[in-house]
């Protein structure tokens, strides 16, 4: 028995660790390569930096600017502005909007870039990571904290 030879157990440990490092590296490289390809939508600033072909179907995502939703004369179309803090794109849509489509909230519009505005065929509402009870929304900071404290003690009992 050669005492310098590492135990098979340790050999396997090293082998599995190396295999895992290679695997994770390959996975991250693939994800890095997909960085710009696996996006579900373009942001307005991405569109501004790299304008798309007019007839191509794309998705545009961002925040609906406060006070920008306006009904058009035909009664079923709306016009609003989607922004991401850096750039803004006007959007036109005809049809029924989802419940969560409100000003100041996220939206993903699917359609084509038109000459004056983005012509959306469908709208998807985006929900952000915040979960806030309805009653707390309109309250002052102090009231909200009080209600939260009550809910916590009430629920924890």
């Amino acid at each position: 028995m050669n005492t310098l030879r590492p135990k098979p157990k340790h050999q396997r440990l090293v082998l599995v660790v190396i295999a895992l490092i290679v695997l994770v590296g390959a996975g991250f490289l693939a994800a890095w390569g997909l960085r710009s390809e696996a996006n579900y939508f373009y942001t307005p600033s991405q569109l501004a930096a790299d304008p798309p072909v007019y007839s191509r179907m794309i998705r545009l995502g961002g925040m609906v600017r406060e006070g920008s939703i306006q009904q058009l004369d035909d009664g079923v179309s709306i016009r609003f502005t989607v922004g991401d803090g850096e750039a803004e794109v006007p959007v036109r849509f005809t049809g029924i909007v989802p419940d969560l489509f409100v000003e100041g909230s996220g939206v993903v519009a699917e359609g084509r870039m038109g000459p004056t505005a983005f012509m959306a065929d469908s709208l998807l509402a985006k929900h952000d990571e915040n979960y806030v009870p309805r009653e707390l929304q309109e309250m002052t900071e102090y009231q909200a904290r009080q209600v939260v404290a009550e809910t916590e003690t009430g629920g924890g009992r």
Partner: protein
Amino acid sequence: MHGFANPRRFLALARWLTPVMLVSGIVLSCGATWWGLTQVPPDRLMGETVRILFIHVPAAWLGMGGWAVIAGASAALLIWRHPLSAIAARAAAAPGMVFTAICLATGSLWGRPTWGAWWVWDGRLTSMLVLLFLYAAYVALSQASAREGVSDRIPAIFALVGAINIPIINRSVVWWNSLHQPPSITVGKSAIDPAYLWPLLIAVLGYSLLFGGVVLARMRALLADMQAEARLRRKAMEAA
């Protein structure tokens, strides 16, 4: 740690731990579900549909956690050759797959009223669907290798390769623009109001205990199966 790789010592521990985990898991998850369905206030934007949160999030957590268990047990099998770790990996596959399916189904039901679509091909949804397929492949592979008596190292290697999907699912909403929301709970910070956070944490704990209990019960069943088979084989040898 290595002490519990001994099946006899494991069985002595699992005998009382299984019912404890199952019962406490059922009590906590039922309680959290009741709390979430009837007691929490409606969300400012989503209204009543926010209640799906208390099933969707624990299911997603255990869908990914289940694969982490399979991958961890598979690494232990490859390195230390503990026979018990192969059993642990096999036992965790079916419950993990069920939770992944629950996560996808509840997410779809939630997406229709909030986003306006049952399904979209964004990074998070697609990578979670890939996880469901990985589970299906793993279940088929591990059952086939157990039935045919081939080396259980083949499903173990598959489990390690599939583990790369777990960080991708976790990061998918950060790396890429997605319709799915970014994480609400990050290290030391939560964007979820305490009114929702507490029942959610209890649900996660309850579902995890339930998952652990089911895995232990399945491990005991698999061990009993193997023992029965070995005994039959011995009897047949003696008779011959």
